[in-house]
């Protein structure tokens, strides 16, 4: 079955679209596959289902959809998660197995914090990026996997793509600054 087909993507409906597109708290990481049960199966327009679109969890979405429309059948669920706090960090020093970073709260903006982290908390693929000046996102939250809830701390380093165009733009700007600003 083609799970990438929008027809089967249960979250791509008018009442769930806002949730997975705009609501960062719910990562759209599960899908419900709809199965055609009879030859004369007629799709029920989700808009006619009177469901509050601002449901708090994907779990509620699934159960309500299944309860209201027997044509929907859960064939599989994966992990989904909810962030409760997020920061952007810049490493200010590295000391052996730990690094210290300036942390900007992305939820409660204003003052910044200083935090210390262990190298071991960073995924293997990102460890090479641990150096002074590097930027990362750090989020705390919960994850649900097969009904089990766990606390989660995720550090993701920023990987910036740098093209020849970026380099040329920088060089052009430098040239322009050199030619246009006089210095006494």
């Amino acid at each position: 079955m083609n799970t990438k087909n929008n027809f089967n993507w249960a979250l791509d409906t008018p009442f769930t679209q806002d949730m997975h597109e705009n609501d960062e708290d719910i990562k759209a990481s599960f899908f419900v596959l709809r199965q055609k049960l009879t030859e004369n199966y007629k799709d029920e327009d989700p808009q006619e289902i009177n469901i509050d679109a601002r449901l708090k969890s994907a779990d509620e979405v699934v159960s309500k959809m299944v309860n209201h429309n027997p044509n929907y059948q859960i064939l599989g669920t994966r992990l989904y998660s909810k962030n409760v706090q997020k920061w952007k960090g810049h490493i200010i020093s590295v000391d052996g197995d730990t690094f210290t970073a300036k942390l900007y709260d992305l939820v409660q903006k204003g003052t910044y914090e200083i935090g210390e982290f262990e190298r071991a908390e960073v995924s293997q693929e990102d460890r090479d990026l641990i150096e002074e000046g590097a930027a990362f996102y750090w989020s705390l939250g919960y994850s649900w996997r097969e009904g089990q809830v766990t606390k989660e701390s995720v550090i993701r380093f920023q990987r910036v793509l740098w093209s020849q165009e970026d380099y040329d733009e920088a060089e052009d700007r430098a040239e322009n600054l050199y030619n246009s600003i006089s210095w006494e």
Partner: protein
Amino acid sequence: MDCPRYDEAEITIIGTGGGYGESVVAHIGDGEWLIVDSCINPVTKAPLPLEYLEGIGVDLKTQVKLIICTHWHDDHIQGISTVLENCPGAVFSMARAHDLKKFLRLVSLDYQKLKKVSTNSATNEFNRCLDILLKRKATAKASDCDKILYQRTVGIPVTVAALSPSDEAIHRFDAEVSKLITGFGSPSKRIQPLSPNAKSVVLLIKYGNSQRVILGADLEVDNNPNLGWLHILDQSQVIDGKASYFKIPHHGSLNGYHQRIWSELLEEDPTTSITPWNRNNKLPEPSMLEKYCSHSPYVFITSAVKTSKPKERDRMISKMIKRMNYKLKEVKYEKGIIRSRLNLTNSNAKWEVKLFDSAFHVNPILGKLILQ
């Protein structure tokens, strides 16, 4: 708050508690002002030197004559591009490498990187200043040791001169710029100049023939006599008298202290000010406060050095942070203003200091501070 008279000098130090920049605004007589560095309110992002000057009725468009960026350090120039934008009549001055082309290449490369990661860093602020100067087709002033940055000979004569960085410091900066460009590294990683304090611009303000002010920026003492404070003490050509006002350098640290500064550059019992540093390490240390108080009964600080605590948040989130064993320390915002004024027409006049918000006079409570 009121505006100084035309014949009154004013040196106002604005601190933010040690994490959001610091700034000095100085009245150089005849309604003219200069602004040194910048700081912001982290919530409103408003540059505090502009807030102060507008609050006392200064016309930013015409009365601000000089804006100086003392060094390229994240926590000293926050909001400086907004300051420059709002003061179109001011000349912008900063220390830069002698090889201008290479220097501009470095800052542009770093700026290009930062545009992708969106951060509020010194490089961003500095590059925005360059963009403003470009748009205005303005002339900027490089700050070098013994260079006159501003002078007025009519009315109340005033001279503003840079005492640093030294030629040796600039020469080393040139080499550093080459290294930084070569080791450009990952585009995700910010360019980190080494020792920005070594290129700090120390300022001397001469009011007429008698009054001198030294603003110490973040310059430190170096063993090399061609660098730091030793270079100023032994080789400066513009110092022609002792200063009655001193902004203590580098947040009152031991690295910014030298006995000779106090005996050779400053009058007896000068009026002095300090801005604290409140990140991982905390400055000034109590022992240094004791030392400064032994030199002068007039030591003022913009806010106290405090133990950092976690940020106040929703109880559930705070609990989660604690349970996961993370120790976060908030860098608190604490505004403090030390305003000092001096009557320039009275040769016996002393600096009159007024304190606002978190600023306080250190000497009377030194004992209490040492015990903390």
